[in-house]
């Protein structure tokens, strides 16, 4: 079942007075419980696609169907209701949240705004969400700036799953984390995907990370799809120039005794 279908998406910006295509005729689909990775160098259009899908910006052309409805046609209350099903996690949760807010406050907002739980019920729901992402419920009273980067990203994931989404856009969500923490967060994401059947649009510049968690991959170059397919197959045998360059540039750990 298709969760998200994007067709012929285009977004143009002006740079130095000249128009240039940030996203140019991009189409893809993501199925339930599927991870689609967007890879590509800086400026290839990865994050612009994420922002278009989230409707943080509007496209110049193209169509976005989310859960079978024309997502670009929605507005007002209908858009807000549908947005609960489409969540996001960014690279830096400290920038995404009010740093002085408590963890409880950050998790309370979506539950309140989307009428998911009554005021009396919310503390229990917050505790359950924290537990679901592997955090102690006592963390609820801590301020966002007091907890570690890994804990913050878990809180960001807890907030994203609070509204029971069918799709989460993960924009470089593990790029700033230490490698030991990164592995744990990726395992958490995979676990949630299995349990809740969530689809991920997984944006990363790191092919190693993509290969670890993604089912399919789209390699972007200058806003266009350079190639796409099974993530492991594409990374093992890239066909496009940019795909080959990305694979060649990925550092390899050559260990004779693994």
């Amino acid at each position, binding site marked *: 079942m298709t969760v998200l279908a994007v067709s012929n998406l285009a977004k143009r910006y002006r740079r130095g007075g000249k128009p240039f295509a940030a996203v140019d005729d991009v189409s893809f689909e993501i199925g339930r419980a599927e991870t689609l990775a967007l890879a590509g160098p*800086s400026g290839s259009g990865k994050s612009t696609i994420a922002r278009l899908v989230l409707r943080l910006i509007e496209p110049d052309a193209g169509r976005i169907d989310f859960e079978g409805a024309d997502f670009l046609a929605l507005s007002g209350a209908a858009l807000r209701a549908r947005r609960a099903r489409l969540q996001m996690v960014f690279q830096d949760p400290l920038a995404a949240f009010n740093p002085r807010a408590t963890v409880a406050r950050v998790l309370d907002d979506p539950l309140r705004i989307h009428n998911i739980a009554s005021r009396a019920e919310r503390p229990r729901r917050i505790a359950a969400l924290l537990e679901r992402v592997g955090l102690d419920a006592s963390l609820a009273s801590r301020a966002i700036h007091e907890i570690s980067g890994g804990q913050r990203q878990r809180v960001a994931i807890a907030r994203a799953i609070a509204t029971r989404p069918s799709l989460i856009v993960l924009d470089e969500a593990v790029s700033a984390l230490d*490698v030991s923490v990164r*592995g744990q967060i990726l395992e958490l994401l995979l676990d949630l995907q299995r349990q809740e059947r969530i689809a991920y649009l997984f944006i990363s510049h790191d092919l190693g990370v993509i290969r*670890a968690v993604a089912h399919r991959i789209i390699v972007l170059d200058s806003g266009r799809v350079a190639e796409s397919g099974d993530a492991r197959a594409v990374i*093992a045998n890239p066909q496009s120039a940019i795909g080959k360059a990305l694979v060649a540039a990925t*550092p*390899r*750990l050559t*260990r004779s005794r693994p």
Partner: protein
Amino acid sequence: MTALLSIRDLSVRYRRDGVGALKGVSLHVEAGERLAIIGESGSGKSTLALAVAGLLAKGAVIDGTIEWTIPKSQTSHSFAPLSVLPDISPTRGEIEPSSPLSPISNVVGEMPAAKPPISPLVGEMSGRTEGGAVERQPSHPRDTIPHLGRDIGFVFQDPSSSLDPVMPVGKQIAEVARAHLGLGWPQSMTLAKTLLDRVRLPSPDAVLYAYPHQLSGGQKQRVAIAAAIAAGPKLLIADEATSALDTIVQAEIVALIRRLVAEDGMTLLFISHDIALAATLADRIAVLRHGELIELGETDQILNAPRHAYTRSLLDAHLGLDARPLLDRQGASA
């Protein structure tokens, strides 16, 4: 091989939280080697880089010594007449308070062979001493100590914040040559153009007068590297110099650093959180964790026979293109 610098029992504490950023780190950096310092956040790797460069914030409390051995024979810079080369005479001593480097640094000439006693100096970056138990060594003329910019080139993670946004990049590179090599502006600008060419920026003539915002992230980092090597430093420190760049640009910058270090016979301190990236460049790798030096060895030994469990865990956490995908591991356990 001779040590370019010997770090002994180096501890650094930032006063605001009182937690040790570095705890008793001792290591030698051999002249001409490429040494990678790797670790996760809070490991102290950047503190170590800043301490070596004498760039620690004023409030930092420092223990231990950093001893320099600056080769007598200077590799003359192709553009610098001999008369303007820094005069580094074989002498040693603690650095005077006004010096740009940390008060814990000692400079040792290759000759005479006599090594200075290791004195447990306690100081802070302002040059004032703490505890009262410290004997000040006689100070030495400025030119006898390593200078940041002249003897040490430093490349930071974010080229946007290390470059002046309102000065043409050519001038920023020329400034380094002017300050440290004593060249005039015309000569410095000629040198800057040569350096832009050496860091492989397209059309150096145009880039010379470009402002940082007109360049891409990778191009800005090339400019920062050109400025760092402008005075012909013996030591190049790259502190997460490629972390803000995408994979392709990162590989290009690493290749550039490798080439420049080889061409100029520089010693390289490569600070990184990425053990795989460090391994592509380094002769030796030092692993830091929570401010302590966990392990130091040849790159091959670190990768294939790590002695410490933490090093092994870092290697295992690397998601390479040949690793078993987590998807499969999860599926197997489900």
